[in-house]
């Protein structure tokens, strides 16, 4: 099989994983080294596919042969997709070639399970080891870890990788038991716990090393013990949305639990998309991509805006028809919350605390910081909001400034309707 053909099959097989970040790792460069590669804190998206996703890493599977039969997965053992397998050397060469072209920030490597979890993980780790040790590659490496692989292999993976991830796949253990008979939610959580312990230990040791600088000679630079490395960009996971019947409230609660328990950097949500050769036990129609987008927005509210996971989506009332426990599809979760809690508004931008400014629909974290700074030296006016580039109509409905009060607009029954975005007919190339 030609390399072109393998790459086609194994990129196809990898495209259902949503994670693409190449950020949040330690700063490195190839200065003084034998190879190439650097990381500068924030990742770089080198290209974008027409699906709007960034291409930052070479995202491939080592092989799409797999013994597991996870029904939502295009690579499950019972699927009819064409199969291929890269050699370790082929992946190494491809990574270095794309990197030299400046097409990628590094490698994202995952794999189907072949022979057994340990064998598979060993192959994946060997790719990372070759890149780091034989080629002195200093770009970004993200490895997908196999939850049932031995702790020793996870430890070695963390030595070479910037980020590790284990997919929880589905929001509930029940869903997993039904759709992924070989996967075990408890084992996945134990692996995440194990990774968090390693990551925390390495961080703690690095802090200690930085705090103790040994000055041996008055003229010499302080020498530091090398900090142990373990996945400096932390860990992430992915949840498939819409392959089972779990509601958004449950999904957010699962995410909050994962963030809290395992300090994940990111939970990725992936709207279940119809896969070629789908199993008959799954929905064949895609869930709206809007739902995935709303989940990301809700996830941001939890991580950066001080919202608790259980206040974003109201629980489904008993006897509730559709819509209970689900995020609204036609307005964003922050606006939905504000509309449901009008008694908390209008917010006086000149006096309200930071926490409340963050809850104003249309105000982002940066805008809030600027408003707080500016209001220390003068009264805020509506012109300030105009210059901040915030969605004015939305913000004005919920705030008071020196020269503006929303008056009775907040009580108007049609407020939601007036603030809803106008649906746009999708065109191939919007201007």
């Amino acid at each position, binding site marked *: 099989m030609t390399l072109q053909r393998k790459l086609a099959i194994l990129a*196809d097989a990898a*495209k259902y994983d949503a994670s693409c970040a190449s950020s949040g790792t330690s700063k490195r460069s190839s200065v003084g080294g034998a190879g190439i590669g650097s990381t500068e804190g924030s990742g770089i998206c080198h290209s974008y596919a027409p699906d709007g996703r960034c291409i930052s890493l070479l995202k491939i599977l080592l092989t799409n042969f797999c013994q597991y039969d996870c029904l939502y997965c295009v690579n499950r053992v019972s699927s*009819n997709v064409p199969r291929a397998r890269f050699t370790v050397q082929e992946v190494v060469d491809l990574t270095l070639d794309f990197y030299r072209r400046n097409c990628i920030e590094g490698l994202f490597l995952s794999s189907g399970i072949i022979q057994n979890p340990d064998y598979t993980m060993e192959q994946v780790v060997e790719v990372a080891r070759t890149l780091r040790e034989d080629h002195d590659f200093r770009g970004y490496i993200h490895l997908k870890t196999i939850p049932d692989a031995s702790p020793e292999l996870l430890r070695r993976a963390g030595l070479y990788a910037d980020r590790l991830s284990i997919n929880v796949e589905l929001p509930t253990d029940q869903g997993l*038991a039904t759709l992924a008979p070989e996967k075990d939610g408890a084992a996945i959580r134990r692996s995440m716990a194990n990774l968090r312990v390693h990551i925390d230990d390495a961080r703690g040791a690095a802090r200690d090393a930085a705090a103790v600088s040994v000055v041996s000679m008055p003229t010499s630079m302080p020498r530091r013990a090398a900090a142990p490395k373990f996945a400096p960009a932390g860990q992430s996971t992915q949840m498939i949305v819409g392959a089972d019947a779990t509601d958004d409230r449950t999904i957010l609660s699962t995410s909050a639990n994962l963030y809290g*328990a395992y300090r994940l950097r990111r939970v990725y949500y992936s709207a279940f998309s119809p896969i070629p050769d789908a199993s008959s036990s799954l929905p064949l129609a895609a869930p709206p991509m809007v739902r995935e987008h709303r989940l990301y927005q809700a996830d941001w509210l939890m991580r950066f805006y001080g919202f608790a996971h259980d206040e974003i989506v109201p629980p489904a009332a008993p006897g509730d028809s559709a819509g209970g426990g689900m995020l609204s599809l036609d307005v964003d979760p922050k606006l939905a919350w504000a509309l449901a809690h009008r008694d908390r508004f209008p917010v006086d931008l000149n006096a309200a605390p930071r926490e409340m400014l963050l809850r104003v629909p249309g105000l982002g974290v940066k805008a809030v910081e600027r408003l707080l700074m500016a209001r220390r030296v003068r009264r805020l006016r509506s012109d300030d909001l105009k210059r901040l580039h915030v969605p004015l109509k939305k913000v004005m409905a919920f705030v008071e400034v020196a020269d503006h009060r929303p008056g009775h607009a907040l009580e108007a029954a049609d407020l939601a309707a007036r603030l809803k975005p106008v649906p746009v007919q999708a065109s191939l190339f919007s201007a």
Partner: protein
Amino acid sequence: MATQTITLDGDTDWPGFRREARGLLTRQVPPDDIVWHTRESAELDLFASLPDELDDPEASGDFADAASPASVGEAPGRPAPTPHPGGASAVVPPAFLRLCETVVLHEDPARFGLLYRLLWRLVHEPGLRDDPIDPDRVRAQHMAQAVRRDMHKMKAFVRFRSIEQADGGATLHVAWFEPFHHIVEAVASFFVRRFTSMRWAIMTPERSLRWEPAAAGREGTLTFGPGARREDAPPADAGEALWLTYYRHIFNPARLKLAMMQKEMPRRYWRNLPEAELITPLSVEAMARSGRMIEAPASVPARRIAPVAGLRKHARSPAPDAVLAPMPQALSSDPAEALSQLREATQRCRECPIGAHATQAVFGEGPVRAALMVVGEQPGDQEDLRGRPFVGPSGRLFDRAVADLGWARETLYVTNAVKHFKFELRGKRRIHKTPSQQEAAACLHWLESEVRQVRPRALVALGATAARALLGRPVAVMKERGQWHAGPQGEQVLVTLHPSALLRGDPALQEEAYARWLEDLALATAVAQAVA
């Protein structure tokens, strides 16, 4: 006052601007009396030193300082302006200097006028430095953003193509790029850091860069040259087809989002991106492909890979709502074996709701025939992650006590009354919650089984939950601490505080409280040090 015309040495002459601005400010020339021009750079220094990258400038805090020679050298032969009597002193925040360094690279000819006006106003309007929404500041901010974005896009969209050298020398990697602002020198160091060991050149309409990596006894050198033409860049090489294949196949046709793509990869960059020619055909095809996939009947599974023997099917997580009493049917008669059966079984326990949210059950650990058994309340955050009892902050305090008492932890059997971690989420933290009586009661039989297998000579109950579990009655720990009590089966139970109570207590009294706690525990020393 007459209008003054200032001509700077080229589009990115930050040192020149800085010098002129300082002079003008000293002479109290108001912003409206100045017209700024730039001269096309004269002969460029072929071995110019690397400019400081804008991302991490070492800004000096004082605008009136003499410039440090490393970054903004005074041109030789030009005296620094002498301060005017009554001239404004120009002390500005370092952040403003960083902003200027970036805005200078913008292509808008009005940038220098804007920056000088801002400088003037910063000196004359004290409130301005604290007002990020001032119109001039916002405009400069937007310019800086546009420059930073262009720099970022250059880092992202430069595409090297390789040219094999006829003389067998190292391959040269060449890129053609068209930036929108004057950013080429500012971005150069990024490519040096990233591709240190590679020979490369980047051509743009205004400037060119070339990097020769270090060779025997020679440092790597970066050379700036004049602009180039698109035709000077090499055509596609053979390897590019692999990149195009990757681009074609990593795209998911079920998720067409062209607006999103164009927001991040504006069309004006497409002409120099080899993959851009695939965008339209892929998009058109996607509509059709996605439709076909949904219309295709679901497939009949074809198991072409034989399932492998020995794939784990055990340890299946129970359904969260199942109420299970998963006691092993036949406990081994060997206590060590029985304990490991019990340990396995607790993992599946869902007799109360706690288990569904924890990582794992944390079972006791220690020798099978330990003389002393120590019982805590429940695992905490660290225990839940590591799967072992007493390894978090409370565990460390307990270990300190064990050492001070001359006990050895490896001779103790250490466990908890409740086997799963109960917590509530506050933001990103898991905050310990005391288990309810029902939860503790549901968990009691696991502890009883451990006691039956280990058969310790005595037990220590740390805290009220453990004391109640072992004595079968509510226990007022503060009243009953430091005494031996008899359990339902006549077992000897010493009651004292849980170490977390000491950690939560008044820090000023901590050492005193610790000493009292040690006195309580010391009552069990004879048992702890007994040879099992």
